[in-house]
Each structure stands twice: as C-alpha cells, then as structure tokens.
C-alpha cells in the first residue's frame, strides 16, 4: 500500500492531472460535483456528490449523430466526442458499485459504444468512507464502504492518504506517479457503520417470492399516492440508466442526441406505445420493481440499488426505496 501525505494532496492532483483530465468531487455553485481539477481546487467536505458519478460515463445529454440535408440528399455524420483518458478521484464505494450495475446494462452485447468508450478511457480511484450519513445503507446491500474497489482504492487515515491498486489500469496509474512510501494502513474505527439506522433493511426478500407477488402488492397504490412524478430520484440515482433518443432540427441539420429519461414521467416510453403506464402508480411501481425485482431477476440476484441515500435526501415528498422496500416486505404501508 502506498502512502501520500494529505497536506500534499494538491501535488497528487497535479501529478494525476499531468497527462489526463482529473475529476475530483469539488464544490461548484454550492454543490458537490465531479469537476475537472484545476490547480488550487479543493475536494468537497461533503460525503458525496450531489449527482452521482455515473454522469462521467453516461452524461445527461450526449450527441449521437447528425443528419445534414442538402436539397434532397441526406448525409449522416457521426459526431460523437473524442474521449481521452481521464481519472476520477474520490468515488465512494456505492458509486463504484453502480458502475458494475451500469456495465451489465451497457456493456452487454450489443455494447453501447458511447458508454464503453468512456469506461475504457477512465481510471477510477475510489475513496473509503469513515463518516457516513444517516441515510447511507450500502452495507444493507453488501457493499463495504471501507473497501471501495475501483482501479485504485484510497483511504484517509490520520495525516495520510493510502493508495492501493486493484487492477492493471490502477497499477499503471500509480506507477506514473512520483515514488511513494510503502506501508500498512492502521485499522480505523468502523463502529459508526454498526450504528447506521438503515443498515438492517432487508433486500433479500425480493428474490424469495415470485415477481407477480411483488407486482400485485396492494401497497403500490398508497406508496405512490403522493409521488409528484418528477425525476429527481432517477436523475440523482447512480444506477438509473433509462434514456430517450431525440432529434433536434437546427435549421441546417438534424442532430440526434440521447438524454436521460425517467420512468416516473408521464410520457416515458410513450414513443413506443400510447397507453404505457397510465397513472403514477404504474410508473412508480416500475421504478422500484426494476431496482428490486427485475434487475436482480436478470442479474443473479444483484439489487439495482447501491444504498447511496441520494434519493432519500432529494425526494420532494420523502418517498424512497427504503420506505418502499419495507412496505413491500410487510405487505402494507
């Protein structure tokens, strides 16, 4: 394990940013956000970014192609952006796990080349948690916030940052950095994780019963009743992956782009069928069924949630996956 002095953190950033873009969680306009590092830019004090780290692989808006019409000729242009190597520093364990969840969707054949391109060029440096929020429940989903994974795992302990490469990519990255002292990370105090109020939410039940049991549960009606149908939960969620493909006529050409979509929206997948999910109950159910039942059914029981707690803080009416999971298990609200 390599050691870097925390008071020289800026030097580490400078070294990482030397050859490629480095993203760190920094405060921008009052919000913690993964931001291209510039000299002097400090890391946020917030536990995690406001939006998740998926933005860097699956941006909210992305150009796919353009069609230029001259007279009666149509010319197709591939206008995807060139992606160069980049590093993300400070990814928490939850977000790091979300990458593997997204990978299973986007990298399965046929692979989403836009997503793949970004994944291939990225090196992920994670950061272990020591001061979780009360809304954190990654441990309930089998994630160890103190073993965050990624290409390089990092820990802050005392005055030092400890770095450990987990992959070849990670090793290659560390090799390029100035020589570092080797050493063992002292054992920190992890007792706080045992005090997390949501650590015992039971997500295992969803694989125990048939899909339709959950689908037909009577609780959906009441749970969804006050849902506003906004997309804040989906848009801050690290594992939500739905998008819409849209065309924009610029007057001289048509630009085709994709942008995030939300199953909570009334017009979600309306392009395919007129009467998809007519009320908020069906839309609401879709979102949670997807995370708790459909995704695990398709991916060896892995829940499509990483317990980052963002939706718990962001939902305007404080409805969230924890409340849903508990209610479903109990069979009543």
């Amino acid at each position, binding site marked *: 394990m390599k050691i870097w002095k925390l008071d020289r953190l800026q030097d580490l950033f400078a070294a990482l940013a030397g050859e490629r873009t480095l993203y760190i969680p920094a405060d921008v306009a009052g919000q913690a956000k993964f931001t291209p590092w510039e000299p002097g830019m400090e890391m946020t004090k917030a536990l995690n970014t406001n939006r998740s780290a998926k933005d860097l692989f699956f941006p909210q808006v992305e150009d796919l192609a353009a069609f230029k019409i001259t*007279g*009666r000729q149509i010319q197709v242009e591939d206008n995807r952006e060139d992606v160069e190597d980049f590093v993300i520093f400070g990814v928490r364990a939850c977000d790091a796990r979300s990458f593997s969840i997204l990978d299973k969707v986007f990298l399965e054949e046929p692979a989403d080349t836009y997503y793949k391109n970004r994944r291939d060029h990225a090196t992920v440096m994670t950061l272990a948690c020591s001061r979780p929020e009360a809304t954190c429940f990654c441990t309930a989903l089998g994630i160890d916030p103190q073993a965050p994974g990624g290409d390089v795992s990092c820990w802050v302990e005392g005055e030092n940052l400890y770095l450990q490469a987990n992959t070849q990519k990670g090793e290659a990255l560390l090799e390029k950095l100035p020589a570092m002292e080797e050493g063992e990370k002292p054992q920190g105090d992890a007792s706080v994780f045992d005090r997390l109020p949501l650590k015992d939410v039971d997500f295992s039940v969803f694989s125990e019963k048939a899909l339709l049991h959950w689908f037909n549960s009577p609780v959906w009606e009441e749970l969804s009743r006050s849902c506003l149908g906004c997309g804040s939960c989906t848009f801050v969620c690290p594992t939500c992956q739905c998008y819409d493909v849209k065309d924009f006529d610029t*007057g*001289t050409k048509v630009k085709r782009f994709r942008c995030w979509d939300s199953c909570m929206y009334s017009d979600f997948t309306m392009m395919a069928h007129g009467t998809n999910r007519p*009320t908020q109950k069906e839309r609401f159910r879709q979102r949670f069924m997807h995370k708790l039942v459909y995704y695990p059914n398709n991916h060896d029981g892995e829940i499509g949630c990483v317990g980052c707690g963002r939706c718990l803080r962001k939902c305007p009416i404080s409805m969230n996956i924890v409340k849903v999971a508990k209610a479903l298990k109990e069979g009543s609200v």
Partner: protein
Amino acid sequence: MQRIGVFVCWCGSNIAATVDVKQVAEALGKEPGVVFSTDYQYMCSQSGQEMIQEAIREHRLTGVVICSCSPRMHEATFRKTCQKAGLNPYMVEIANIREQCSWIHKDKITATEKAVILGRAAIAKVHLNAPLTAGTSPVVKRALVIGGGIAGIQTALDIADAGFPVDIVEKKPTIGGKMTQIDKTFPTLDCAACILTPKMVDAAQNENIDIISYAQVEKVQGFVGNFSVTIRKKARYVDETKCTGCGLCTEKCPQKKIPNEFNLGLDNRRAIYIPFAQATPKVATIDPNYCTMLKTGKCGVCSKVCTAGAINYKQEDEIITREYGAIVVATGFEPISMEPFDEFAYSQSPDVVTSLELERLMNAAGPTGGTLLRPSDGAHPHTLVFVQCVGSRCDGAQKGKSYCSKICCMYTAKHAMLIREKYPDTEVYVFYIDVRTPGKNFDEFYRRAVEEYGVHYIKGMVGKVTPQDGKLKVQASDLLGGRQMHIDADMVVLAAAIEPDKSARPLATMLTASMDTNDFFTEAHPKLRPVESPTAGIFLSGACQGPKDIPETVAQAGAAASKVIGLLSKNSLTCNPCTAKPDELMCNGCSSCEKVCPYGAITYVDKPFRGPNRTTLTRRVAQVNPAVCQGCGACTVACPSGAMDLQGFSNKQILAEVDAICR
C-alpha cells in the same frame, strides 16, 4: 408531406428590378416539399392565375406559396384562384417580396437573399397549414350612422332608400352639422341652407331613418354584421314627442346671456333653445349648465308657457342598446383653436375672425342679419385682410397641423368674391402660400375672384396683426413683390385649419377602427378601399377621414352607403376561419383565456373524458364560438398549457417561420 408549388412574381419591374426572381424560384425549388417552382411577370394577371391553377392540377399541389406583393393586396385574390383549382384557400401563403423587400432595398444581391428567406418562411408555414373552412354568421339588417352632418345625412338617406333601416346618432340637439352654419357654397355660390334643409327634412320624414339627436355612442361590442351599440341619449328636459317647436319658451326664458354656439358666440341664446329655425328635430332643448330651474329649482317659466306640456325637468338620460350590421362614422371636423396664433391678435380684437365666423356674419340668419359689420363697433368694414393656411401646412407642426386643410383656398376666394360683389367699396387682400384649386370649375372660380372682382392676392405671410386706434395694423410680406406691406385693416379673417372632431378619438377606440397621427380615421386602403375602415363593418363618410369639401363629402357618403347596402343585402357573412381552437385534452379550464377575450367568444363546459384505467373524468374545458371569435390570439398566450391555439397562425406555424428566418 406537402406538395408545395412556389410562384415568384416579377410584378413587372417592381420586384424583378431589385430581386433576381429566377434565382429565387430556383433556390426555393430546392426546399424540402417543394415540387414546383416558377416565376412569372404578373402572377395576379389572368394568365398568371391560370398558370397557378394549371400547376395545382398538374403537380397535385397541396400547398401554394406566392412570392409577390403584400398579402394585404392580393392574398384574397390568390386564395380564390387556388380555390377554383380545387385547393383549400387556406393552403396559400404569400411571401411579401415587394413592399417588404424589392421596394425598400437597392442592392440586388441583398434583396434576392432576403426574398429567398421570406419565401422559405412562407414554405415553412405552408408545411403546417391545414385546410380551413369558413363558417357563417347572420347579418343584422340595420345600419348606424354616427354623426348627422351632411355626410351622415347623405349616407343615411342612401341606405334608407335601399330599404334598410338606419339610425343617425347626433351629439348636438339637431342634425345638419357644419353645413348649417355655412352661408354660400363654392364654386356655384348657391345657398347652403337651401340645399341642405330639404335633405334634413327628408331624413326626418324617411320612415327607415331614426334620428337619435343629442346622443352619443357609449359602447360598441360585436363584429361585422353583429354590432351591439349602446347609445346615451342625453336628457334635453323636453319631451320630443310633445314639443311642437313653436319656440315660445325660447323667447320667454329669463336666462338670456348664453353664448350662442350656432353663431359661434357672436350673439346670445336662452337656456332653453332651438339652435336655428330649420333645426331637425325642431325641438327645444334645455341647457342644464344655465337653466335656473335645473340648478336651483326656482323658475319654471318655460314649463308655464308651454301649451304642449312638453317640459320635463325630471327627464333622465336614456340608454338605448341596438343591434346593427354596419356602422358608418361621419363625425366630421371642427376648426382648430386660434389660441396659439397670438400673432394674429384673435383673442385681442373681436374684428379678427375665423372664416366660419365670417360665414355667420354674412348669413341672413346670422347675428347681423346678413350685413357684413365689424363685430367691435358694427361699422361697415372697408379693408379686409384674409390670412390663408392658419395652422395648416405647419413645419414640424408645433402649433398647427402639417397637412393642408384643403377647403380654405376655395372658401376664401368665395368670401373675397362675395364681399367685393356686395360691397364694391371694400379692398380685399388675401395672403397665401399657394393657391390650391384642383377641382371642377375651381380654378376658374379663383381666377374670377382675382380678375373680375379685383381681389388682391398676395403671395406671402402675414407676420403680425396689431389692434391700434380702432384699426388692425397688418404687417405682411409680399414675396413676389419683394416688399414689406403695412395695411390698416378693418377686419382680418383667418382661414383656420380644420381637424377631426374631438369625439372621434374615443369613438375610434370603441370601434377598434384605426386612426392616423392627426386623428383622422384610416381607410382600409388609401386608393382601393377609401370609404372602409380596416375594421370590417366600419365605414367612413366625410371629413372624419380627411379634409374635404361638400361635393367630395357627399360623394364619399354615397360610396359608404353603397358599401353598407352591399353588406346589409347579404343574409349571412362568411366568418374568418382563422379562429382560436382549444385542445380539450390539454385544457385546464382555468378561465385565463376567457378573461382576455374581447368578444366573449369563450365559454366553458363540464365534459366527460376517458381517464386512465377505464375511468371517466369530468373536466371543465373551454369552448370557442367560431362565429364570435375574431382571431386576435390573446387567449393563446394567456393559456399556460398551450391548449388554445389559433388556426392559420398556430404556434407551430409561427415557430416554423421564426426558424426559417433565423436559420
């Protein structure tokens, strides 16, 4: 996808000289959806129209774009053309490449580029046009004439002659207007009263004409064919049905010192009065500003002497609401105030008079019994100076009007001639900028004044008039003679400019008829539609539209009447199909649109709609009455959900035009 045909008009050289029409036709031919594009010398000509029709059939066009003059000029023409070829008339759009392109640009490249863009915008719009079908609305077969001067009377008589009922609303106690105050008329010198009063009598006796005198229009609602007008008939404190017009009351009334407006304040009248002998209706009116009985409750003389028992001090204003199919504005003119023209000493000396005052001083029914006497001392004047263009043709229009009042040259010649004829011992000077005499027998008339009657016409302006020792010292310049002149005059007559009657401006607002900066009503087209206002169903008669003399006024009055008759002889009118239309599925029923609709065209109903999961939801949704909607679009912007859209000018159509112009 539409199949669009583009037709680029040369308009002779009007367009073709500054716009490369071939290039425009070629460029627009490449636009998506355009299957045919051509140019032609005159699209509006018979052969041009035939060409369009042929192209519609041959190329199975679903939309047509014509790049030509303003749609205000020929949109209707081309719509008809296309309709005859089987195309819905609302599938036609005009790109205005003449008024808004070739005529305002000099550089051919620039103008051509712009013409292409304007064409593209029209094509973009046509892509989103939908066939529209006009509905109909019934026509109320009654006309309203506002103003009872010669213009109004003539219009009313002509409409009534055609068999349609017509109401005249006159703000004064009698109809007749300015012409009643005029002594003789040019260039024939016949007596104004002699030709006017028979018409007044005709109007009063015509069973199709209802004269509502001493009344004003208060509110106008509705639209062409269906106006609803509220008229306030002021209390005259005399029962019109009982008053015989004997005039006894007007002799006995103790309130004597009231300036008589009929004689422009040159003499006095009583508090109860009949404006003049031939007044129509010949009914007395009590002036509430002076009547002792009305002010203090003590007097009642008129009531005592009236044998018909017509006096009613308790009379109140009457509100009349009637429906009309057409409205004619005939509000006329008035001379401008002479107050700002201090250099002519109008307010300092009673011997400085306006031309209209001179008319009264020369009229047998006037304050002097028709003998020309100086107002100050009643002496016979020997030297008279006429000043032309007082307040007309003023530079910058600081205290006058920038326009020519048109009638002054001729009436001044008339006055000068009459004075010289009646009083050969007088010297008459006329100071003028130009003498303008276009009109049948007008120049001959003016020359007679100079040549036969020896009136001194001097090109130049009067600089100052100073009352001194019972004379008026006139300082003037003779431009042709290159000299300063000093004339000791007995009277100075000012040819005051004329302006629209003050009541015209608020009336225009009520009628939604537009006015120019001088408050003259604007005509729908200065050449082709001179008696119509741009607002459908509103017609213009007489000097409210611009300065004009009596024959012109009568001609225009007749023309307005014929337009009204044309309108009233229809049983129904084709409505404008470009009306607002709500999308009920999106309507919130919030009433925003209703609040901004000037016509009350929007109502609401509770309607059942299919909800999710086989439920039924009842929602309040807007309904537009297409016969009442005039298509302004106020509602479309007030509507937050965008449920309300305007057919023919839809959100998407306008956005498409914006896109095409900005691309």
